[in-house]
């Protein structure tokens, strides 16, 4: 029991150290560059405590649940040997986690506003909601497709850069044809799609698959799923902007 306690305390300290740089930056800029007092000290103290506890709990939960779930499911699918179900699982995981992602919802609403201002769509609420929803589904679909493709790559053992480099070429080519207003959003949507809870799960899935399949190296083959998930939304969102 004492050991567990110690581990928890150690992790708390670790989390505190992880967060220290942010506070250092904020305080130094506030006090010395902007030369203003720090407001609401109590709020900041309480908030800091929360952030430290939250990060500690998250990391404990990571090792207890998200990593093992991803890995055991990867093993189970590899043992079952059904490519169809594995690919369907990969797609559902990508699609399901992205469609409800709050960061994406925010970006999609913002994008609808820009599109309305730029005259791409009507400035009515209805048209904007449709546009935002369409965008969200496009991104969710593209992330599902990305995880599916990434899993297929691990199974087949294709080198990662054979797929990433054509992806880059795709992004660059699309950039020349997509409407200007959508480019910034498309580029950003690549980064915001992968949430904090999805990343560990998907990473564990990839690494688990690469360890379960013979002749695959978890280090070279296991990573790369997130890379696809940040690349395909750029291409799909630009395509969405071109079609509409």
């Amino acid at each position, binding site marked *: 029991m004492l050991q567990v306690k110690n581990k928890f305390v150690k992790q708390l300290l670790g989390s505190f150290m992880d*967060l220290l*740089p*942010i506070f250092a*930056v*904020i305080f130094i*800029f506030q006090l010395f*560059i*902007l030369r203003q007092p*720090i407001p609401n000290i109590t709020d*900041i103290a*309480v*908030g800091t405590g*929360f*952030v430290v*506890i*939250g*990060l500690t*709990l*998250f*990391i*404990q939960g*990571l090792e*207890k649940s*998200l*990593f*093992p*779930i991803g890995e055991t*499911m990867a093993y*189970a699918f590899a043992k*079952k040997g059904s490519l169809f*179900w594995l690919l369907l*699982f990969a797609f559902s995981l990508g699609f*399901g*986690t992205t469609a*409800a992602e709050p960061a994406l919802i925010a970006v999609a609403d*913002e994008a609808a*506003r820009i599109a309305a*201002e730029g005259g791409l769509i009507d400035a009515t609420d209805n048209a904007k909601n449709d546009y935002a929803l369409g965008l969200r589904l496009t991104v969710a679909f593209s992330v599902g497709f990305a995880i599916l493709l990434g899993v297929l790559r691990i199974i087949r053992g294709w080198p*990662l*850069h054979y797929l*990433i480099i054509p992806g*880059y070429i795709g992004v660059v080519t699309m950039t020349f044809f997509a409407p200007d207003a959508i480019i*910034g959003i498309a*580029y*950003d949507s*690549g*980064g*915001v799609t*992968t949430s*904090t*809870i999805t*990343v560990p799960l998907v*990473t564990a899935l990839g690494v688990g698959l690469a360890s379960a399949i013979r002749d695959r190296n*978890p*280090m070279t*083959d296991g*990573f*790369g*799923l*997130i890379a696809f998930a940040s690349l395909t939304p750029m291409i799909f969102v630009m395509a969405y902007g071109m079609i509409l």
Partner: protein
Amino acid sequence: MMLLNEIFATLLSTLRDVAPIIFVIIFFQLVVIRRPFSHFKNLVIGMIYVILGMTFFLVGLDKALFPLGTSMAEQLTSDDFIKPSTDQSLSIAWQDYYWVYIFGACIGFATTLAEPALIAVAIKAQQISGGAIKAWYLRIAVSIGVSVGISLGTYRIVSGIDLYLFIIAGYIIVILQTIFSPKLIIGLAYDSGGVTTSTVTVPLVTALGIGLASSIPGRNPLMDGFGLIAFASLFPIMAVLAYAQFADWISHRTQLKQLDRKGE
């Protein structure tokens, strides 16, 4: 009381966030794999930790960091602070904004270091590589990448250079680095681009981008404010590849030295 309400609301939204993931997992486990979960109790406890952890983390960020951080981003980009040296309707001196670049670099570095998704990937990479890749070094490399990315991204907003020019140049560099990098690191490097930008970094960086784009005449906050995240996802790839090349070069050199000594 207010605090309790806030915690409860965040807990609900985190639950809503996690619900589709749990649904997909349970469906496939029960319908396709058709076996009960092993260590079920542990998984449930772990999941509760994850959900509570995310809730406290988000509430804490909202209380301690985001209000100050975003207002700081707005103040640093405002004309009162910048005191432009030129008539901005004629030309914009990019040097005037040096505090913005410095702040972008510092905040990008610091927030990335605290990004839970990156911590997760770094822990996994250290486990799998048997310690050859140190979680801490990886996180530092990624943070340096984000820091360079954000500060270059803010420069882009000030100077008004097209986003895609930077992105294309970045892609070319990444491809060249890929050719010369040790194969082992490539997947991890590409992944680190996607994991850097989530919970902590995005809100602060978005505030910086939009604040900057609204204070500079001729920039449209809605169009130019975007793009910083793209920088923050591209530069870590370069940074991690560079770190791998550097580590490779060091070990290669020590090997050569050892061979030299044996030769003597």
